[in-house]
C-alpha cells in the first residue's frame, strides 16, 4: 500500500521500499492573529533524503520548522513521527526523539571554549571529560575539524556553525533541520557543509534544508517543498526543474530581473575616507589599518571579504557609532565628519543599514513605527518640538511596506514578529525612502528571497542612478558583481585598492580575500586590459 503510493510519486524517497515517512505533518496550521503563517501543510520527510523547504520571505518556512522542533505549538494539525502522532512540549522533547536543529543565528558564548559551548547546549548528564572526548570523535568522524579548547571568538563564522552542527550531531538525530545554513558561509565553507550533509544522508538520516539559494538546492536536494503565503504549493524534484521555474513557483509569477541603467554619471565625491585607522573597541575586534577610498555620487562600491576582517568596525566608523579622533578621516558631502555623531551624519544626508537586523538595525520588541523613528528622528520631520508625530512614523511604515512589499500580520507589528527577510526589506526601505546622499549598507540582501533581493538590488541601483553614493558590504560575490562599479576586498582590517568590476575576477578576489596581494604587474595589466 505504502509502496504503491510511492511508486505513483515521481520524487525519490527512501531507498528501502518498506519504509514509511520518518516525519509527516498533516494539515499543520499556525495562526498569528488574523494571519495564517502555516495553512494546513502536509509534508513527508523520508529517511535518507535531503528535503529542501523553499519559499519567499514570510512564506512560513521558519514557522513550520519551529513547530516541528517544538518551539511553537501549532494551532491545528498533526505531527507524526515514525508513524505515531506526537505533541511536542518543547525542543528538549524533540531532541530526545531524534530531531535536531541548527539555527541561522548561533547561540554561542564568545568567551567560552568550543567544548564549554557544546556542554552548555547538551541535555544529558554526561561528564565534561566524556563529552569532550565524544565531541572530538564526532567532529573527526564527520570531517568537521574543531579544536575543543579554542575560544569561540577566535573562530570564523563557518567554524562557529560547525560547533552548532556537531552539537546537533552529538545527539545522534535521525532528522536534522537547517534554517538557512549557507547564508553566512563563503562558497568554500558551503561546499564543505554539503559533503557533510551528503554523508549524513548516506547514513540514513533525513535532512530538512531551508535556503534561498536555488542553485545549491538543485545540487544537493532530492526533494523540494515549496511554500507560498503559508500554503504548500508543490513538492517536486528540484533536479528536474530549473532555478527559474522553482522561483516562479515560489513567487507565483515571473521573477523580476535587475536592470542596471548603463552609463550612470558619476558626480562629486560624496563619501571620502582618508587614511582611517582605529584601534578595536572590543577585546576581540579588528584594528582598522590605514583605510582610504573615495566614492562619488552615482557610484556603487562593493566591499568583499570573509566576515570578521574588519567590516563591522568599518561600518561603525563610517556610521559614527564609533568616532575617529581626526575629523578629516571620514568626509561626508564635503564635510569632515569623523568626529560627528551618527545623528549629525544622518543630517548630512547619510543613511546606514547594519548587518544585524534584530537588536542593531531594529529594537526587536518595538513596533515598526517606533523603529522608523529610531533612524528617522533626526531628519525626517517625525519629531516636532520634541513630540513624536505618530502619523508620520506610520506613513514611513506604510511607504516601506508598499515599495518593498513587506509582508506582515498587521499594519504596525513588533519588529521581532516579521520573518527575517521581511524585516530586512523594511530596514532597507526605511533608509532608502529618506533619499540619502550616501548609503552605507552591510549585507543588504542577507536572508532575503530571490525576488525581494532583486527588488533591493534594483533600489540600490536606482538610488545610485539618482545621484547617491552607495557602499555595499557583502559576502556574496555574485551580488557585488551585479550591482557594484568597483570592488575592494577587506582583509585583516586593510582595504585593497578597488578593482573595476569588469576586472574583478573570482580568482583575483579570492586571492585578496585570502590575504595575498595582487602582483603590481597583474594590477597594471588588468587596468590596461
Amino acid at each position, binding site marked *: 500500500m505504502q509502496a504503491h503510493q510511492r511508486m505513483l510519486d515521481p520524487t525519490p524517497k527512501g531507498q528501502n521500499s518498506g519504509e514509511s515517512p520518518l516525519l509527516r505533518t498533516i494539515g499543520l496550521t499556525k495562526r498569528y492573529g488574523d494571519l495564517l503563517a502555516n495553512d494546513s501543510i502536509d509534508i513527508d520527510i523520508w529517511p535518507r533524503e535531503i528535503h529542501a523547504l523553499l519559499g519567499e520571505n514570510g512564506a512560513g518556512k521558519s514557522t513550520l520548522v519551529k513547530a516541528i522542533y517544538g518551539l511553537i505549538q501549532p494551532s491545528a494539525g498533526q505531527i507524526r513521527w515514525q508513524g505515531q502522532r506526537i505533541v511536542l512540549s518543547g525542543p528538549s522533547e524533540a531532541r530526545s526523539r531524534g530531531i535536531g536543529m541548527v539555527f541561522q543565528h548561533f547561540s554561542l558564548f564568545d568567551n567560552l571554549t568550543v567544548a564549554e559551548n557544546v556542554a552548555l547546549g547538551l541535555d544529558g548528564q554526561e561528564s565534561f571529560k566524556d563529552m569532550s572526548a565524544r565531541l572530538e570523535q564526532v567532529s573527526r568522524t564527520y570531517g568537521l575539524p574543531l579544536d575543543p579548547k579554542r575560544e569561540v571568538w577566535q573562530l570564523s563564522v563557518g567554524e562557529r556553525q560547525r560547533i552548532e552542527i556537531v552539537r546537533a550531531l552529538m545527539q545522534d538525530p535521525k532528522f536534522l533541520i537547517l534554517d538557512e545554513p549557507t547564508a553566512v558561509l563563503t562558497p568554500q565553507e558551503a561546499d564543505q557543509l554539503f559533503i557533510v550533509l551528503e554523508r549524513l544522508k548516506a547514513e540514513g538520516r533525513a535532512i530538512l534544508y531551508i535556503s534561498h539559494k536555488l542553485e545549491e538546492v538543485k545540487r544537493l536536494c532530492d526533494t523540494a517543498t515549496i511554500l507560498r503565503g503559508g500554503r504548500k504549493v508543490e513538492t517536486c524534484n528540484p533536479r528536474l526543474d530549473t532555478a527559474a521555474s522553482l522561483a516562479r513557483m515560489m513567487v507565483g509569477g515571473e521573477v523580476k530581473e535587475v536592470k542596471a541603467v548603463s552609463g550612470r554619471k558619476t558626480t562629486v565625491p560624496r563619501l571620502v575616507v582618508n587614511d582611517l585607522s582605529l584601534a578595536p573597541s572590543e577585546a576581540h575586534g579588528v584594528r582598522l589599518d590605514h583605510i582610504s577610498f573615495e566614492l562619488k555620487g552615482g557610484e556603487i562600491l562593493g566591499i568583499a571579504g570573509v566576515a570578521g576582517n574588519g567590516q563591522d568596525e568599518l561600518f561603525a566608523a563610517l556610521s559614527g557609532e564609533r568616532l575617529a579622533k581626526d575629523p578629516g578621516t571620514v568626509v561626508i558631502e564635503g564635510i569632515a565628519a569623523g568626529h560627528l555623531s551618527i545623528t549629525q551624519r544622518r543630517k548630512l544626508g547619510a543613511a546606514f543599514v547594519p548587518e544585524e537586523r534584530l537588536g542593531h538595525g531594529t529594537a526587536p520588541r518595538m513596533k515598526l513605527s517606533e523603529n522608523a523613528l529610531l533612524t528617522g528622528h533626526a531628519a525626517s520631520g517625525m519629531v516636532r518640538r520634541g513630540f*513624536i508625530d505618530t502619523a508620520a512614523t506610520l506613513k514611513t511604515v506604510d511607504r516601506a511596506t508598499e515599495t518593498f512589499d513587506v509582508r506582515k500580520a498587521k499594519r504596525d507589528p513588533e519588529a521581532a514578529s516579521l520573518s527575517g527577510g521581511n524585516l530586512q526589506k523594511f530596514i532597507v526601505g526605511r533608509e532608502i525612502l529618506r533619499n540619502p546622499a550616501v548609503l552605507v549598507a552591510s549585507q543588504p540582501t542577507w536572508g532575503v528571497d530571490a525576488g525581494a533581493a532583486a527588488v533591493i538590488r534594483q533600489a540600490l541601483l536606482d538610488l545610485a542612478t539618482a545621484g547617491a553614493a552607495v557602499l555595499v558590504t557583502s559576502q556574496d560575490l555574485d551580488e557585488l558583481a551585479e550591482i557594484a562599479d568597483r570592488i575592494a576586498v577587506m582583509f585583516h582590517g586593510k582595504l585593497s585598492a578597488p578593482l573595476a568590476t569588469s576586472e574583478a575576477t573570482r580568482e583575483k578576489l579570492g586571492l585578496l580575500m585570502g590575504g595575498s596581494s595582487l602582483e603590481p604587474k597583474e594590477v597594471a595589466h588588468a587596468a590596461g586590459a
Partner: protein
Amino acid sequence: MQLVLEKRAERSGTIALVSPLIAIGLTILTMVILFAILGKNPLLALHAYFIAPLTDGYSLQEIAVKATPLVMIAIGLSLCYLANAWNIGAEGQFLIGAVAGSWIAVKTQGTDAGAWVLPAMLVLAAAAGALYALIPAICKVKFGASEILTSLMLVYVADLFLDYLVRGPWRDPHGFNFPTTAEFDPVATVPLLIEGGRLHLGSIIALLVVAAAAILLGRTIKGFEIRVVGAAPRAARFGGFNANQLIILTFAVSGALAGLAGIIEVAGPIGHLQPGISPGYGFTAIIVAFLGRLNPFGILIAGLFLALTFIGGEQAQIAMKIPLDVTKVFQGILLFYVLACDSLILYRFKLVFPNRQVTRGAG
C-alpha cells in the same frame, strides 16, 4: 525528576498583564501562613490590612497622603529602570530634598516672608534631590562605579546629615531638647485640600507627575530614547541615543522627584523636620515601580495599594497587636513575587525527567 525554567518561544502578553495580580495573590497566601504562625486569626488580620482602611473616610484620605510620595518617587525610578539605570537611593534623595527645602523654612521662620516661601522650598528641594542623585550617576558614567552601590550608600549619608542638623544647628530652642525643628510657618506649609482633612496639594502634584510621565514616555522623543536605551542598547546607539546622557538625565529627574516628595512630606503632613520622616518611602517606591510594571498609570494604582498596606499595618497593630514590621515583611515578599512572576513572561516552568533532557533556550 527536575523542575527547570524553559524560555518561551513567544513573550506571553497575558502573563505580562496578570503577573502583578499573581504576585499579590501569592503574597497574601504567604501572609496568611505567617499570621497563622504568629498565632493571629488570618482572616481578621487580612480584614484589618486590606478591608478596614477602605471603610472610613479618614483612612481613605490617609491612603492618598501615603501614596503621594510613593507615586512621585516611583515615577522617577521607573524612568531610571526603563533606561537600565539602577537608582536604589531614592530614600537619600528624598531626605536631602526635605533638608534643602526645610532650610528656607527654618531661615524664614518668624519673619514676614511672603507667599514665595513654599514655591522656593519646592524648587530648592527638587534641585537638591537632583544634584544628590547626580553623584552616583556621574560616578557611573565617568568611572564606571556601580550606581546600585553608590546610590544606596548615599542614603546613609543623607540620613545622618539630617540627624545632625535637627540635633544641632536647626533644633527648635523651645522644643524640650527633642531633635526637631520648630513647626513651619503657614507660608512654608503645603496647603490642605479639604479644611480639617488630611488630603493636601501634594496629591494633586503627584497626579500631574503621573500625567507628565505618561506624556513623556508615550509621546515625546526623550521618552522614546529612554525606552530604547533600556530595551535594545545597541539599536539605541544606532539610533544616535547616548546611554550615558540618559543615565544622567533619568537620575536627575528621579532625584528631583524624590526631593520634591521629601519636602512635600515635611512641609505637609509632618509640618517640621525631624528624624524618621520617611518609613522607607524611597525603598517601598522600588516595589511600587515594579508592581506598576514601570507604567505611569500602573504605578499610580500600585502606589495606592502599597499605601494601603502601610495604613492596614497600623490598623492591624492597633486592633490585633501585629508588629508594624510585618508591613515591611509584606512589602519585601511582594517585591520577591513580583520579580519572580515577571520571569514567567519570558520563561515557563517545566518538569523534566532524568531520561529526557534539560532544555536550552533557542531561537
